[in-house]
């Protein structure tokens, strides 16, 4: 695709930014050609995607602009990256001789406690940021499971969501102003104001663009007070056969006007994997957490308990159990390393796919996906699901599934199993009118379904892409699939 030779790409980038910013080590390039979507290939040391020509580290918006201008002029595909924790193929270098533009060194941030905002370079690691904020009695309120690895740029680019979103919202509710660089080198800054009505909200061209329209260099997000001493936990177990009741309980809490921070429903299989220390098999779990000023969290807790008391199928669970469990939730590098070793030894692999839907369709989506996965996918060893983000008008479902890779070379695993599973999940979700991606992003994995997902509004997405990236150099294959 690039109009200059592969070897010259790294050379020219070195002249632009300095050779200490350009990496051409073979192993680094291989690892930079994919993300956790191709987890099995990666564990088996197989790299099926075109290997990028270079990884280049930019340290300012101006440097990003110079790199993008250069790539634009030479028709080089660019993949923006910060924390490298993406899981839907968004970071795959789908075209030959791509360049991975890494912003992880832009890791400065400034806290503004008066205006309750923090301005972050795209490379600010969320865990480090939130740990520092908590020490000052503040928090971003954003706590995705990838927190130990993720950085701000990627979190905004993928429209990520955290575990407490039911109170704090997703990243889209948290962003104030942004700065991004477009493929033609244009650096655009959107200022920090609480709200405005000056035309369409252009922040949403940037938030969720998954690197297909621009490179995010800076983001300002809101801050909230951090009051963990007021946290309350409420939990019930119920028979797995009552999952429909479970969804209806989630809905009851939301439509009654309560805003817990954490609202979850685990089906029996998923619940067991978390709570095997004390939970029997065949029991689903409902869990809520209330946060905020003491009066508010107490009232929320009392309200939820009152609503749930009307359901005899629910059996209360000791809140201390939930509080202890909660501390063990996030995945750090040690767990990822252990998972990798297990995959290599057992050829059994676990993946997740999340979707969303209105209250009236969500249970049907969950039930029909589960049935189809169990009957149509070969060698499947586990299927479970949970809801983790509720709204007044619906919720998400996060499917977890494991399968043995049997009689299948690593290069073919993705088609034999992973893509088949995704196809089933997307088909069922679209059939009932839900969305095929709640918060992981379309990436390249689900870009194949973009037209069905968008329907007539696909015109708007396509036009954005044509407007901002007319020469097709930004993360090609993401959002809009490549033509075969």
């Amino acid at each position, binding site marked *: 695709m690039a109009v200059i030779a592969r070897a010259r790409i790294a050379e020219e980038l070195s002249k632009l930014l300095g050779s200490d910013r350009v990496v051409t080590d073979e192993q680094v390039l291989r690892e930079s050609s994919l993300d956790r979507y191709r987890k099995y290939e990666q564990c088996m040391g197989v790299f099926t995607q075109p290997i990028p020509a270079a990884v280049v580290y930019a340290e300012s918006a101006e440097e990003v602009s110079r790199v993008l201008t250069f790539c634009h002029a030479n028709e080089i595909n660019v993949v923006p990256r910060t924390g490298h924790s993406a899981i839907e193929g968004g970071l795959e270098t789908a075209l030959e001789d791509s360049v991975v533009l890494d912003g992880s*060194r832009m890791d400065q941030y400034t806290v503004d406690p008066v205006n309750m905002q923090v301005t972050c370079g795209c490379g600010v690691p969320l865990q480090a940021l939130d740990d520092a904020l908590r020490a000052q009695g503040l928090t971003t309120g954003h706590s995705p499971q990838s927190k130990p690895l993720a950085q701000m740029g990627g979190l905004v680019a993928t429209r990520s969501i955290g575990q407490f979103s039911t109170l704090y919202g997703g990243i889209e509710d948290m962003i104030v102003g942004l700065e991004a660089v477009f493929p033609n080198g244009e650096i655009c800054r959107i200022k920090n104001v609480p709200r405005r009505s000056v035309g369409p909200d252009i922040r949403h061209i940037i938030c969720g663009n998954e690197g297909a329209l621009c490179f995010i260099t800076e983001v300002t997000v809101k801050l909230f007070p951090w009051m963990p001493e007021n946290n309350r936990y409420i939990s019930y177990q119920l028979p797995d056969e009552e999952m429909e009741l479970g969804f209806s309980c989630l809905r009851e809490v939301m439509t009654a006007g309560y805003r817990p921070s954490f609202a979850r429903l685990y089906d029996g299989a998923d619940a*067991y994997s*978390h709570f095997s220390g004390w939970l*029997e098999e065949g029991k689903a779990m409902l869990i809520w957490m209330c946060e905020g000023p003491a009066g508010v969290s107490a009232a929320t807790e009392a309200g939820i308990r009152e609503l749930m008391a009307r359901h005899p199928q629910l059996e209360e669970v000791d809140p201390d159990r939930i509080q202890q469990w909660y501390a*063990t939730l996030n995945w750090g590098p040690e767990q990822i390393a252990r998972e990798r070793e297990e995959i*290599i030894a057992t050829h059994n692999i676990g993946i997740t796919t999340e979707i969303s839907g209105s209250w009236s369709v969500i249970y049907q989506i969950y039930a029909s996906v589960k049935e189809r996965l169990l009957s149509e996918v070969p060698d499947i060893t586990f299927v479970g699901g949970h809801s983790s983000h509720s709204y007044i008008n619906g919720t998400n479902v996060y499917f977890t599934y494991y399968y043995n890779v049997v009689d299948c070379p690593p290069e073919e695993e993705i088609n034999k199993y992973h893509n088949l599973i995704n196809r089933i999940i997307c088909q069922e979700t679209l059939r009932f009118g839900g969305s095929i991606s709640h918060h992981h992003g379309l990436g390249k994995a689900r870009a194949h379904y973009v037209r069905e997902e968008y329907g007539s509004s696909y015109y708007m997405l396509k036009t954005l892409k044509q407007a901002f990236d007319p020469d097709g150099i930004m993360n090609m294959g993401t959002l809009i699939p490549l033509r075969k």
Partner: protein
Amino acid sequence: MMLLLGCFKVVPDLDRVPGKVWRKVSGTAVDTDYLPRIISFQDESALELMLRCADRAPDDLRTELEALTLGDRRCDPFLKNLYALGFARAMRIEGSAAAVCPEDTAAELAAVCRDRRPDLIVTGCQSSDGGSGLVPLFLAETLGIPCVTQVLDFTLLSDGRVEVRHQGDEGIAVRRVRTPCVLAVGNAACTYLRFPTVKAKLSLGRQPATVLPPVGEETMAGLRLQSLRGPDRKRAGVVMEGDTAEERVRRFLARYGKEWGLL
């Protein structure tokens, strides 16, 4: 036909405990109820090695696999999983694995072994919740049979013996051992237990675990826990600053290189 019996312990996944919990301990127990359950690492290796051994047994040698644990109903999903993997029998002696001393555990396991009469008893050397390391040896003594520890792998021989590869003080040795005997598995590389499919679980894994009453004689415990404490391992932990690895390494060598004898 050779009968192989695997003894395993279900333990809490202690790797998930946040560090600060260990620093705040008091009394004689740490609450681990909230942690997910797993099979103790070396016991898991033992079960996987049994399956591999059965997979490659000579054609003229039929093998049957059984599994045994001491514990409460939290063990049942693991036993059903073993049925789904092709174990012929999965048994549980009713009791609390954490509360029973190694002497009593061995006595309970021995009672079942006398009943089942396995040719080979396979288990882990030491449970991953920091166990005593005594059970396999007490079990062997109670049954009056040999025991090989730190086993890495084993193969059945047509003459009824078993060839065992095990780690010793002088290196890794291979011995041929007569059966019945106890094999206590040590640090065997790459031996995670395989996963049964959902279909196998639905067809074979529906059988309930066989629950056996404990023999329950008077306890023969040799030790009683009086108190617990967390060791203090803190050091300065000075983090080298720098935007790149190179800068941090340079900073480290500048500050400590000579003093630490690296330069």
